[in-house]
């Protein structure tokens, strides 16, 4: 397939050029073309895109006018969606960065304070004299004065991916506070580079040159400079456990020799426990460390904070459906457990949403101050086909069945959605307050609160009573929300009071709830006042038991209020009309984009080749090798019969017998031919089958479905994925 010829594309290359290029290790296919102002630079004739309106609505566009109109509308909306993505995603990204910075901020400040204290301690205890500073060798002192102040930063995360960013932020933070900071990774402490490798890296970062010889005295003389010597020298090693123990030990011993002249402060990132220090470092090295421990936030805590910020407190107009959240939850807890991959998955979801959903450009309105004005303006410019598309959205089918969606109803629907989401967030935050008492993570509650099926179930009057009774049965899958309601029922005294106060803040905008809350708070306050005013012991006991009963009643009332809030206001996004505009629900698509499974898929491709190449696959649905099949698919099917070890000879013979099955008419014809002619024909057939076999086998090799031994004529080992 030659590159397509388009008005904007470079001149098509000839076939000679193509074959030459394919033998070049690399070649420039084309250079960037200068842009034409306002032109459709990235849209070529061949890649004209139709907005995918999924099945029926596609025709709706066509009814709106000629092809040119369609194309213009298409292009216009695509540009709008790109602009909206550029507004929405950066906002989400900034929110996430801010959350992570805030989580780490307090630890970073503590680390900095400790660094300052350590630096002063080193300086005050062992201030070198002028002579000592200028001498070119380290100062030999006793062991206690050769200790290095070492901060052990526990990451609480076996996966180090998240910590890469954290330690980068830490070094930036310390640098901004005036420290000299060097970041060393486990690669610098690998056996390959030796001690010289990490010294070189160190010098490169501080002196900004690559010295020929790696010598710590170069560093000492650099530090002696007046502009350098007043700041602490911090060395951050982010993955201590992965460092080569011997080299790290040598490195620490070397630094301890120089510690008087080079007031080095070490920061070691540790994923597991402080036992790992003993495992990695030699015993004599440990006595040169003066440790101080710090802990970073856990990944689950970080994730909760991100969800709270992105989807509850600073909603940017993009949402994810229940199934997607459930997938994220599993992906996070079962597969990876890193915040980084969660963010990546979220970005893929966001990209796919703005790519697939024609009306997604309206999401931008959620971040506008004058959101109503924005939607009124955008919706009024919408033409019939796109309004028809909005009317056909599954969430609008019942509501707008007769009248269809109009510009006004669309803008109104979006405003309603915003208001409804605000109420949903208020109730969810109330639930999260209860969850904090029992340290239940937000992700589980968030996932449950988004489940449209559970929302419908909760509508039944005795839902909570029944579910709370069932909580005792261990076999039943426990609902997080039901457990939280039970927790409210069992709360008393100060925690309940705190809870009601927090709820009061979250539900300020829901008048009905706010009034009920005030009533509850008053009852609780009255009871407490009565108990505290009576001092007689007998009456105190009597009142206390009465107050206990009353408290029970307040608990019940609080639990009832919680149930009422959940039933009336915890309406998931997916139960809202027009939610498709903001809500991404395509979990399958997300999975495919996120987790490729090439080996398994390639086998399915071969097994189901008839789905792509339309030939008759026979009665067994393509499982039996047929002559009409793709050659590599025939080999694959035959390999299935052979098992794990494949005899190349037998494989070839089986292949040949399939591709060379002569038709009856051919047999008849061949009867009239001379023996010489038949021999030539046979030889020809033999060559053809050999070529086809070799080619198919090579393709099989290229796909890494087989391992061929070096020795010719042997057997191949088939590499099978889980049976597709």
């Amino acid at each position, binding site marked *: 397939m030659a590159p397509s010829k388009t008005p904007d594309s470079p001149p098509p290359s000839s076939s000679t050029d193509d074959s030459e290029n394919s033998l070049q290790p690399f070649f420039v296919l084309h250079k960037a073309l200068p*842009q034409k102002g306002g032109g459709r630079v990235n849209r070529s004739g061949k890649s004209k895109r139709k907005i995918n309106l999924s099945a029926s609505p596609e025709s709706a566009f066509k009814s709106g006018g000629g092809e040119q109109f369609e194309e213009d509308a298409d292009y216009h909306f695509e540009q709008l969606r790109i602009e909206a993505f550029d507004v929405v995603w950066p906002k989400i990204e900034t929110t996430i960065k801010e959350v992570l910075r805030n989580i780490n901020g307090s630890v970073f400040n503590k680390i900095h304070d400790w660094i300052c204290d350590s630096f002063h301690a080193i300086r005050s205890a062992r201030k070198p004299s002028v002579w000592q500073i200028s001498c070119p060798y380290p100062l030999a002192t006793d062991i206690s004065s050769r200790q290095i102040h070492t901060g052990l930063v526990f990451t609480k995360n076996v996966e180090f991916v998240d910590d890469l960013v954290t330690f980068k932020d830490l070094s930036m933070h310390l640098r901004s506070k005036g420290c000299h900071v060097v970041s060393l990774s486990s690669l610098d402490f690998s056996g390959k580079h030796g001690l010289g490798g990490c010294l070189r890296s160190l010098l490169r970062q501080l002196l900004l040159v*690559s010295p020929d010889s790696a010598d710590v005295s170069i560093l000492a003389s650099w530090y002696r400079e007046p502009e350098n010597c007043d700041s602490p020298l911090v060395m951050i090693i982010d993955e201590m456990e992965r460092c080569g123990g011997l080299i790290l030990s040598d490195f620490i011993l070397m630094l301890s020799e120089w510690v008087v002249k080079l007031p080095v402060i070490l920061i070691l990132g540790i994923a597991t426990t402080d036992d790992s220090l003993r495992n990695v470092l030699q015993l004599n090295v440990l006595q040169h460390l003066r440790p101080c421990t710090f802990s970073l936030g856990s990944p689950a805590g970080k994730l909760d904070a991100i969800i709270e910020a992105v989807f509850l407190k600073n909603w940017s107009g993009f949402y994810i459906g229940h199934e997607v959240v459930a997938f994220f939850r599993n992906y996070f807890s079962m597969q990876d457990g890193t915040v980084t991959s969660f963010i990546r998955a979220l970005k893929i979801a966001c990209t796919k949403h703005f790519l697939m959903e024609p009306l997604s450009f309206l999401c931008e309105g959620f971040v506008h101050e004058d959101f109503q004005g924005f939607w009124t303006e955008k919706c009024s410019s919408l033409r019939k086909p796109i309004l028809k598309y909005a009317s056909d959205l599954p969430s609008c089918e019942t509501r707008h069945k007769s009248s269809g969606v109009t510009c006004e109803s669309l803008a109104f629907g979006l405003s309603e959605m915003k208001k409804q989401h605000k109420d949903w967030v208020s109730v969810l935050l109330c639930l999260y307050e209860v969850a904090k008492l029992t340290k239940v993570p937000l992700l589980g509650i968030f996932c449950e609160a988004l489940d449209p099926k559970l929302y419908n179930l909760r509508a039944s009057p005795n839902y909570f009573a029944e579910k709370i009774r069932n909580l005792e049965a261990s076999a039943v899958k426990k609902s997080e929300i039901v457990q939280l309601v039970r927790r409210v029922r069992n709360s008393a005294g100060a925690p309940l009071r705190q809870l009601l106060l927090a709820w009061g803040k979250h539900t300020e905008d829901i008048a009905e709830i706010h009034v009920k809350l005030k009533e509850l708070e008053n009852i609780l306050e009255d009871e407490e006042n009565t108990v505290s005013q009576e001092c007689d012991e007998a009456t105190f006991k009597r009142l206390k038991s009465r107050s206990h009963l009353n408290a029970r009643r307040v608990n019940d009332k609080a639990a009832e209020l919680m149930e009422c809030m959940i039933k009336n206001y915890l309406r998931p996004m997916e139960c809202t009309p027009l939610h498709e505009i903001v809500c991404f629900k395509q979990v399958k698509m997300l999975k495919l984009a996120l987790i490729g499974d*090439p080996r398994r898929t390639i086998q399915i491709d071969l097994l189901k080749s008839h789905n792509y190449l*339309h030939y008759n696959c026979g009665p067994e649905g393509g499982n039996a090798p047929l002559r009409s099949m793709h050659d*590599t698919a025939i080999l694959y099917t035959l390999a299935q019969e052979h098992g794990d070890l494949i005899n190349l000879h037998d494989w070839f013979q089986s292949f040949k017998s399939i591709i060379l099955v002569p038709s009856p008419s051919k047999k008849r014809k061949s009867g009239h031919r001379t023996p010489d002619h038949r021999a030539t024909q046979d030889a020809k057939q033999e060559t053809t089958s050999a*070529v086809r076999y070799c*080619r198919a086998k090579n393709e099989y090799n290229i796909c890494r479905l087989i391992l061929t031994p070096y020795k010719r004529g042997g057997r191949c080992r088939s590499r099978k994925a889980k049976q597709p």
Partner: protein
Amino acid sequence: MHRNVVHESRRISKSHNHCPPIQYWIFPRLHRFPLYLKGASPASISLRLFQQFLLRLQRIPKKIVRLISLAISGMDAKDVEEDEFGFSRNYFLAKDLRGSGKKSTRKLSDIDLVDEQELREAASRIEIKHEKDIGLLVDSYKSLYSKWAFDLRCGFGLLMYGFGSKKSLLEDFASSALTDSGVVVMNGYLQSVNIKQVVIALAELLWDQMKAKRKTSIGGLQKTQQPFSSQSMEDLIAFMDGSQMKDSDLWDKKMVHTQFNWCWYHVPTFMPYKLEGMFFPLILASSGTSQNAKTAAIVLQRMPVNDLYGVCRERFLVSSQVTLNSHLTEFKDHELVKTRRHSDGQDCLYIPLTSEALQKVLQQI
């Protein structure tokens, strides 16, 4: 617009003489070419980032080594990837063992092997099965071009997998949908990829784009009008033919999160792997042994090491044995020079090229 596109499609057979396990050879010996760019040129920031990107790829060769050993050891218990599919293998093994009494002992040599020349000629003439359907299938992906471009624009790299060669598909995509970006294709199936040359080519391309950008910005073009403006050059678009790989083969988790940002796409084309497989031997060809002998004979310019030092010193090429040794280590690492024990017991160095090729190289130098 400020992007480069690296298209990598790789399948390298290390030797032409026998059928080796498949090896992925992306940037062989990249660490030998560290590129330290200094200065405050407009492109320097991006280039430094690019440099970081490349330097981080240093770990790839290790991965390749792992993969090679994995392939050779085959069913080694350490082979985690294989273990993953343990169930099916055990099942088939059991099945195989049950029928071990009937196990075929026939060999390929029992077949009347065809002459290699004849076989290769026949291979070039052979018609492609289902050509029309394949054409339709590949054409059907054109509707996805804008989606792919959108993903690239959002900062993702594309990783295409599925059966069939995707070389022409990706090139067509780049030619028609990425005209506002420079596109570099790296033919990973060739083992002659020289990372230094690639880096220079990419740097030149980036430099051109930076100049073009400055011109257009002077021309008053708004930032928002530029299709890729929100992403600066720090993102290097990469798309890759990943039909036969398992992601852990080529990169580890750290690299996935820091260097690559893959978005997987299942794109089976069923197109023949014509170019990708051109260095694969045809196992039914009869001239394999002569080829081996031919390669073994390609030993030229043999010279004992001590003599070499003398010659080099005379020509003021090196001043000490240490310098010479460091050069030689470098050459050996790149397999530019190999050693062989001479009949008199001395170590001899030789360049594994034919005399004609060597002469040509000398002429070009």
